[in-house]
């Protein structure tokens, strides 16, 4: 193919710019890390704290990311309202937990006081998500790709401001579980109990999901539908039912994540779903969207990076109060993954049909 000189120059300019951008990012990371570590501003214990916090937060991202990834795997659609499903789980659990707390139930049975709100949140989130799917997504299943995405953005706003209307703009404090306050000491390192519990619960829930997807009949059907909807339908799979149950299972994970988030941060508000939602989406892309183990890994990686990032990369550059830019690290990572490896860590190269 013949190309003019001007076109070739623009091509060069663009690829040169891309390389410049990559080198800049690598430089920032390497230089920042080096100067932070050589300054010795943070002790080893602080780094471990950062990492543990990152893991517990990352496991929450991972739980939310599962919903994004499963829905994307089946419908090739970004469920923009997923963050709000997470928020609705936290809200439902909050009301149940306050009620249980008033009766003294949580103090008496801390384990049940944790598990019952989680189950309730999973149920509520799943119901809301099924409703959203029915109203806002199902009629648009064969529409051009932007159409369901815009509808999802609408659903996200609708849910956010419905909750604002129902429960007001304020922030509610999730009732504390007394048994989970304080620290456990492992090998001489104190770790907040709540963080351990959150990471463990998330791991248990993810393990259950993995069994559902890999071992049960419905999981098999899900994998088949995500491979090829039409063929799956020919094999006698009720595609609609599988799509709905995918939404429900993903939402249940998000609902559980909502409760765990509320346990760590103790705050429940109508806007709480937005940022974790975007970050979970980042995790899903990081791990390779459509890939379930990828979402789990992506969540953990993002959580840890975000937790150590401000101290490790930015502090060394002499940026004051680097934790203010914590969220910016997550967003930059999102852009970088899309740039360097759009298929994610574990993802296969997306064929044009899937991308």
């Amino acid at each position, binding site marked *: 193919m013949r190309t003019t000189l001007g076109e070739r120059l623009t091509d060069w300019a663009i690829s040169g710019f*891309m390389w410049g951008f990559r080198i800049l990012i690598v430089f920032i990371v390497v230089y920042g890390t080096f100067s932070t570590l050589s300054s010795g501003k943070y002790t080893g214990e602080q780094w471990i704290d950062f990492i543990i916090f990152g893991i517990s937060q990352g496991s929450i991202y991972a739980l939310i990311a599962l919903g994004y990834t499963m829905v994307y795997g089946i419908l090739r659609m970004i469920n923009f309202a997923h963050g709000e499903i997470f928020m609705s789980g936290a809200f439902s659990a909050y009301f149940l937990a306050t009620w249980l707390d008033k009766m003294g139930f949580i103090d008496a049975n801390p384990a049940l006081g944790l598990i019952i709100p989680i189950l309730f949140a999973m149920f509520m989130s799943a119901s809301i998500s099924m409703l959203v799917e029915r109203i806002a997504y199902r009629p648009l299943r064969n529409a051009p790709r932007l159409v369901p995405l815009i509808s999802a953005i609408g659903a996200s706003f609708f849910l956010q401001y*419905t909750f604002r209307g129902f429960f007001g703009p304020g922030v509610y404090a999730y009732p504390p579980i007394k048994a989970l306050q304080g620290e456990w000491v492992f090998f001489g390192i104190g770790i907040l109990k709540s963080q351990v519990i959150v990471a463990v619960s998330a791991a248990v829930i993810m393990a259950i999901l993995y069994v559902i997807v890999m071992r049960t009949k419905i999981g098999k059907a899900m994998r088949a539908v995500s491979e090829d909807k039409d063929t799956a339908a020919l094999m006698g799979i009720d595609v609609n039912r599988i799509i709905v149950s995918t939404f429900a299972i993903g939402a249940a994970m998000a609902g559980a994540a909502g409760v765990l988030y509320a346990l760590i941060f103790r705050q429940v508000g109508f806007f709480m779903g937005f940022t974790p939602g975007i970050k979970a989406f980042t995790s899903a892309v990081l791990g390779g969207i459509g890939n379930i183990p990828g979402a789990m890994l992506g969540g953990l990686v993002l959580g840890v990076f975000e937790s150590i990032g401000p101290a490790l990369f930015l502090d060394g550059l002499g940026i004051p109060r680097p934790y203010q830019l914590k969220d910016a690290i997550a967003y930059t990572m*999102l852009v970088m993954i899309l740039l360097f490896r759009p298929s994610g860590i574990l993802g296969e190269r997306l064929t044009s049909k899937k991308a």
Partner: protein
Amino acid sequence: MKKENFIWSSIKVGLLAGAIGIFLSLVGMVEVFNKRDVVEKVISLGMFLLLAISMIAGFIASRRTSDLLGGNQAGSNLLAGTLAGLFTGITLALFVLASDQLNLRAIFLNATPTLSGLLTFGRGSGGLWMLPVLGAGTGLAGGAFLLLPLLVRRPITHAIMVIIFSALFSSLFRVIMVNQGGGIEKAAKAIFSQTGLTINGALVFIFGTLFISILWSSQGAKVQNRVDRLPAKGKLSLRVFSILLIAYVAIMLPQAAGPFIAQVIVIISLYILMGLGLNIEIGFAGLLDLGFVAFYAIGAYTVGLLTSYGEYGLQHVSFWVAVPIAVLISMMFGGILGVPVLGVRGDYLAIATLGFGEIVRLLAGSDFMAPYLGGPRGIIGIQKPCIGTLGEFIAVDIPRVCNGIELSKPQDIYYVAIASALLIAFFSWRLRESRLGRAWMAIREDEDVAEALGIKLVQAKLLAYMLGAAFAGLGGAIFATLVGSIFATSMQLIVSINVVALIIVGGMGSIPGVVVGALALIGLPELLREVSEFRFLLYGMALIAVMLAKPEGLWPSQTISRELHHDEAADATS
């Protein structure tokens, strides 16, 4: 397929409508709307909302009955309407009962005694029977409405719509008319009350609309015919006349309407401007950009830094110098940020750009950039535009003196915004039919095919993205001078969502659609305090509803609507 029993279907419609009514009550809409009247002392807006729900339920149930029975059958239709309305009422009554018994207030903020008082018409539990009865009545009316001939139905629909419209905007009309003084002022006071229409006003509007509507349906065809038969010259002068009329209204409106409304109009025109800019990205090239606010912020901060006489002002040039620079810088950033992400497809792009928007906001508000951008304290003291020469810059916190006309009031900035919007409209109109515009549309339809046809994807997309960024920067620049200060907190994602929503609702790729979208989505909430409380809830509903019912928008561009209804057209011709 087995046909449903019409009675059961009507009951389902009624229950659904009741659920919607409960939803609106719990969100707080009924109570807030109740503070406004449709017709003073007769019916409040909140009550009207509930009655409208049961009436629509009756209408829908009646229509479904006709579908199920294969034609109108007066008895069944009326029964269906009544049943639907009745069950709407019963559902709401049960809700009132439940909220009294269960103390729903502990969970739902809006389940207040005021709400249940409102729903029982102030009679406590003794008034519970009224909801089902009223519901059945309005449902019956809704059901009967379907049976009326079109000639009667249309004027009534028009009358109801005009009543609502004029009641909603009564305060606006009132202010404008009262400002004129004299007889107009008296007329305004006779028609509009403080909260809505007066009884006389309502009668005037109802009969006026009925008359005009009936006249139009009997004579309209003739008039239309005459217009169509006009010679080319006559048509042209008619068009010129209507354009002049619109221009006159656009120029005079802010002067006539007073400062509050002028402020609203400026904001609308600002959003029209940005909508036209983003329309190039979304409507033409199909790039869903949720990070529009990033460039808006860059434009605003550039103008702020260049013109502010406050402590962060780097230069103190005039507005007219700063704006082109701001536009260029936004465009440059558009290029820098665009190159990395534009290789990414459709929905990923939306999230990546959203990330950009957030990064810019976080940076602007952080301590890292605070020495340059003021951080949370923002940039204040932005010089107003001046037609004429500016005096010397003397010291921090002292504005430069303007020897000429200073455009300090919102009304003045309005003209700047409208002129820019016209410029952008001209740009996008010319671009759409250009080679580049067609390349964009090809990309929007199918990237792979477009690439195969020799379109350089990244370059064409980059141009669209940079133009969008430039216009966002212009919007931000004008916003900065309008407000006179910039804070990182005003650079929220909401700005991007506003612009995206107005384009989608108005019609992707359509220039008049952007204007309609901005009027509906920005104008309404700014003018009506009642609506502004539920602004984003309504946005969400509007986005979903538009995607479900009319994905081409309220005022679509012809090409897009043809594309979206391609299958139907193909069916019709085959």
